[in-house]
C-alpha cells in the first residue's frame, strides 16, 4: 500500500461523509467573502436561512475597493455597502475600507493568521488556491457553492486527481516564484492541470519564502488546477507564529505536532508527475491572451504559420488582439504603462523587489503601485519604499484588486499596453481592448525604467558595475 499524500490527509481530516457516488461532504474551517458574494447572500435571503457559522466567516472589501479617494461610481459604492450590510446582518467580521486590516482577501487571510496549515479554506474567488501555500486545502467556489457554505459551513466536492510538480535546482538571480509558475503553465498549458490538485515539491520550492510560495500556489488556477499546495515546514511555522488569529501557548505546541504530520509520505504516489529544473528558468513574460502564452524574455514572438490547427488560429487571434508581429523580439515591445499589485504579487517582498530595480531611476511610463493590504502599505512606508516609487514617477495608491480585475474603475484604456504583475492576460481583463503582459514585480519595474519589456538581469548587471 502506498502512502498518503498531503491532499489525502487534508481531505480525510475534513470529510464528514462520502456518498456512494464518491462525492464528499467537507467541513469548511474558514469562509472568506467579498463584495462579489452578493449573489450568494441574496440566495440565502431568498430561502430565509441564516449563516450557519458567522464566527468562521470573514468579509473583506477588495474587488471594488477604491485605491484613490471615494468609490468611482454609485454602483461601485453600492457593492461595498452591500457587503457591509450583509456581513453586519449576519454578525460576520468584515474588514471594510476603514479597517486597518483591509486588503486583498488572499493577502489578508495569511497576514492575519486566519490561514493556517491543515485548514480547509473556501472563497468565491478562483485564486483561493493561494492559501494552499500553507499546507491548507484551499479552493475557489462559485456563488451557488458560496451560498451553500454560508448556509451549512460545508461543501460537496469530489476528490481531485493529484499532480506533483517537483522543482529541482535553484532559481537564478532575478528569477522568482512568478517565473516558475509561468514556466510550468507554458509547459503544460492553461488546462494542463485541470481536474487536479497540485502539490509543489523539491528544493526550489522549499527555498521559496512564504510570499513566494503564495505566488506559486496563487497561479495554480491559471494552469487549470483548482487546488495548489505546499507541505508546511519551518518556513511556514515561522511565518504563522504570532499572527493575530494564529494559535498560541499550548494550542501552538499541539498545532505544530499536527502540522508536522501533514507532508506527503515518502512512498506516496501521484496521478501525474511533472519535473522541472529551476536553474533553466529565465525571467518570463506573456505575449498572448492566456497565461500559457508565456516565454523567456530573451525569446521572439512565435509564428502561427509554424503551428498546427486550432493552436495556429488561436495564436493569430492573440497576436491580432495584442498588436504584435511574429518574429518580433519580446524586448522590443514598448509598453504604455505598468501595474504592480494583485493577489499574485502585492506583498512586501514583491514591493521590495520592484523598488530595488526602481531605486534611483525614473520610470519612462506612468503606472500605479497598489500594495496588497493596508498592513503591507504601512510596512512599505516604514521602509521608505513609497518614496522610491513616487520618486520614480509612479502612483502610490491604496490596497485592493485594482487594475488586475478593473472593477473599481482602475483600468487600462483600449489599445494600451500594460506590463503587469497580475495573473490574467485575458482579453479585456484589465479593461476593454487592454493589452496585458504578465511578469514578475522586478520585471515590471524593469519595463517601467526602459519603457519596453526588458530582461531585469541586465539592469541588475548595471547596478553591479556602478
Amino acid at each position, binding site marked *: 500500500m502506498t502512502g498518503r499524500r498531503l491532499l489525502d490527509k487534508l481531505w480525510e481530516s475534513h470529510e464528514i461523509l462520502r456518498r456512494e457516488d464518491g462525492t464528499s461532504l467537507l467541513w469548511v474551517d474558514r469562509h472568506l467573502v467579498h463584495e462579489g458574494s452578493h449573489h450568494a447572500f441574496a440566495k440565502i435571503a431568498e430561502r430565509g436561512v441564516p449563516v450557519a457559522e458567522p464566527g468562521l466567516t470573514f468579509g473583506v472589501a477588495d474587488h471594488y475597493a477604491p485605491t484613490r479617494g471615494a468609490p468611482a461610481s454609485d454602483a461601485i459604492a453600492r*457593492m461595498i455597502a452591500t457587503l457591509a450590510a450583509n456581513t453586519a446582518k449576519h454578525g460576520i467580521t468584515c474588514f471594510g475600507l476603514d479597517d486597518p*486590516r483591509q486588503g486583498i482577501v488572499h493577502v489578508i487571510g495569511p497576514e492575519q493568521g486566519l490561514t493556517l496549515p491543515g485548514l480547509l479554506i473556501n472563497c468565491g474567488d478562483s485564486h483561493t488556491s493561494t492559501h494552499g501555500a500553507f499546507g491548507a486545502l484551499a479552493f475557489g467556489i462559485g456563488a451557488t*457553492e458560496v451560498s451553500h457554505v454560508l448556509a451549512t459551513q460545508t461543501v*460537496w466536492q469530489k476528490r481531485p486527481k493529484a499532480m506533483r510538480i517537483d522543482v529541482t535546482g535553484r532559481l537564478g538571480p532575478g528569477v522568482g516564484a512568478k517565473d516558475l509558475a509561468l514556466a510550468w503553465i507554458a509547459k503544460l498549458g492553461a488546462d494542463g492541470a485541470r481536474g487536479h490538485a497540485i502539490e509543489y515539491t523539491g528544493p526550489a520550492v522549499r527555498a521559496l519564502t512564504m510570499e513566494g510560495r503564495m505566488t506559486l500556489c496563487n497561479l495554480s488556477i491559471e494552469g487549470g488546477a483548482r487546488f495548489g499546495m505546499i507541505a508546511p515546514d519551518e518556513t511556514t511555522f515561522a511565518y504563522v507564529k504570532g499572527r*493575530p488569529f494564529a494559535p498560541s501557548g499550548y494550542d501552538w505546541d499541539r498545532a505544530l505536532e499536527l502540522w508536522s504530520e501533514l507532508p506527503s509520505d515518502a512512498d506516496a504516489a501521484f496521478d501525474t508527475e511533472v519535473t522541472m529544473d529551476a536553474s533553466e528558468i529565465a525571467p518570463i513574460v506573456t505575449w498572448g491572451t492566456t497565461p500559457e502564452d508565456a516565454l523567456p524574455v530573451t525569446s521572439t514572438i512565435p509564428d502561427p504559420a509554424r503551428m498546427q490547427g486550432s493552436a495556429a488560429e488561436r495564436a493569430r487571434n492573440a497576436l491580432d488582439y495584442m498588436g504584435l508581429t511574429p518574429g518580433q523580439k519580446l524586448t522590443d515591445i514598448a509598453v504604455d504603462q505598468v501595474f504592480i499589485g494583485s493577489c499574485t504579487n502585492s506583498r512586501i517582498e514583491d514591493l521590495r523587489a520592484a523598488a530595488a530595480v526602481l531605486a534611483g531611476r525614473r520610470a519612462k511610463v506612468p503606472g500605479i503601485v497598489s500594495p496588497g493590504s493596508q498592513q503591507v502599505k*504601512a510596512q512599505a512606508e516604514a521602509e521608505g519604499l513609497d518614496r522610491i516609487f513616487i520618486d520614480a514617477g509612479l502612483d502610490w495608491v491604496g490596497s485592493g484588486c485594482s487594475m488586475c480585475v478593473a472593477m473599481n474603475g482602475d483600468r487600462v484604456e483600449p489599445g494600451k499596453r500594460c506590463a503587469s504583475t497580475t495573473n490574467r492576460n485575458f482579453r479585456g481583463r484589465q479593461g476593454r481592448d487592454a493589452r496585458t503582459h504578465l511578469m514578475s514585480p522586478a520585471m515590471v519595474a524593469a519595463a517601467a525604467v526602459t519603457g519596453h519589456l526588458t530582461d531585469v538581469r541586465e539592469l541588475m548587471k548595471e547596478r553591479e558595475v556602478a
Partner: protein
Amino acid sequence: MSGWRTHSGLAVALDRENVDTDQLIPARFMSTPRSAGYGEFLLYDLRTDTDGTPIADFPLNAVPNARILISRRNFGSGSSREAAVYALVDFGIRVVIAPSFGDIFASNSVNNGLLPARVSEAEVDAAIAALADGAKEVTVDLTDRTIRFGNTTLEFTLDDVWQQKLINGWDDIDLTQNHKQAIAAFRAQHVQRMPWAIPVQQTNFRSAGRDTVSQ
C-alpha cells in the same frame, strides 16, 4: 432549479479556444443584480463594437435564438464568477459542448441547470465544420448522454453525479440539511482535535504605521 432530460434548439459554433469567464462576462457588468437579467452581457466585448453596436456576423448575433453553443478546449477557464453562467443561461443557452471546461465553471454550470457536455477534439472539429453554413437544430439527451444533429449522434462525457443533478434539478442545500446530525458530530470532534479551527484573535493587529490617509 428545475431539472430536464432533453433539450432541442439551434446550435451555433464559437470557434475559439480558452473562452475564459472574463470574456463570457466582462467584470464591469457584475455589479448588476441578477433580477435585471444577464443575457445582454454575454460575450459583450466580442459581440459589440466599441460603441456598443452589435457585430452582425458574430455567431450569437446572427442566431439570437441559439440554445446550444459549441466551442473549443478550456471553455470557461479563469475567474470563478458564476455570472458567466448567468449570462449564458439568461441568453437562453442550456448546453455548451466543448472538449474541456474550467473546473469551477463546470460545477457552476451544473448548479444552474446548464450542461457542460464534453466530447473529443475531433468531434468538435466535425461539429464546427457541420455548422459552417449556419445554425442547425440539435437535440441533447441527458439520460443517454447523446447529442443528435442530422444523421450524426455524438456521445458526451458527464460525471454521473452531475447527470443526476441536472435531471432532477437537485438543490444541494436541501440535500445537506438531511445530514445535520452528521455535520454537528463532525464539528464537535474536529474542534476538539484542533481548537484553533475556531479562530480567536490572540493578539492585536499590527498597528505600526496605521494608515488613515489613503481612504
